[in-house]
């Protein structure tokens, strides 16, 4: 009988160890991080065009970027892009 009571108490404590608010918090942290990092396609397009404009002041670049996207690791966000430079104008090196 004593064993049974012990078992019941142990079982109850086991399930109580992780209170449900902890999992609510953790899930929210993840989901909010992801939500906040979502950049709308419009913004991405605008950013891409602005970058192209700035770069073409110095370089001749290919119109279509080979890669242009936001990448995420656990802690950080990266803007990853691969842009083909077609020509380096002579004055770029001298100034």
């Amino acid at each position, binding site marked *: 009988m004593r064993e049974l009571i012990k078992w019941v108490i142990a079982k109850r404590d086991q399930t109580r160890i992780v209170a449900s*608010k902890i999992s*609510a918090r953790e899930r929210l*942290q993840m989901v909010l991080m992801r939500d906040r990092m979502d950049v709308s396609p419009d913004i991405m397009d605008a950013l891409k065009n602005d970058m192209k404009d700035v770069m073409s002041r110095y370089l001749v670049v290919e119109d279509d970027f080979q890669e242009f996207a936001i990448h995420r690791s656990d802690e950080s966000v990266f803007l990853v892009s691969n842009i083909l430079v077609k020509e380096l104008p002579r004055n770029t090196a001298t100034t």
Partner: protein
Amino acid sequence: MKGRTIVITSGKGGVGKTTTTANIGTGLAMRGHRVVVIDTDIGLRNLDVVMGLENRIVYDLVDIIEGSCKMHQGMIKDKNNQDLYLIPAAQTRDKNCITEEQVKELCSKLESEFDYVLIDCPAGIEQGFKNAIAAAEEAIIVTTPEVSAIRDADRVIGLLAAAEIHNPKLIINRIRPGMVKRGEMMDKDDIVDLLAVEVLGMVPADDRLITATNQGVPVIHDKRAVSGAAFSRITARIDGDDVPLMDLDPKTGIMGKVKEIMGMNRGAYSHA
């Protein structure tokens, strides 16, 4: 002096926006201010029933905006408060029949006559939301301690910032102190950590709020209701008083229970 226009919003539906609007509006009027509350949930009006004014509606928000009636004809005076008015939403129209510009124009007229213009925002983030926030300079976000409501609140905070409405204040509704104590519900600190906004107040889940709403009387009139006391404090804070957040620790022990039953525990829930 120009009045303050405040939008009450949440993203998610059913978290208590309308009840909050009714109670804050009533609370501010009880403090001697001239207040108008506007229901912008066109097609799904509810603020009228929460305030118990559903039988007095003749004109609505769309009538005022379209000029089918004068502004003052479309404002319904509250049953208990001389200085509280409601502009109800249209029930048989669609949210696209008014524009953000029209809402701005109406609110700037109201601001010259009232101390507070409170806007009850519809759920969602579409045109109805945009109309509701168009004229607001300040925002109150209502959430509950649930994952879905907090996620939507975060989204709305971002959208408000994009619309140049900064530093929104948060009301955490339907907190259950017993569950918080057992670690089964997120508390104020958890939510502040996640959303990084200032808390304007916490409202405990309260049966008396439901009975008050059944009767069409904002619960802030009920001196024995813990939720009413919470709304009193929130109102005082909006009005600039420095009132501490409510102590929601559940009263334990036999004497605590007895006192609670006898209504002697009101000290803990005192109205501001």
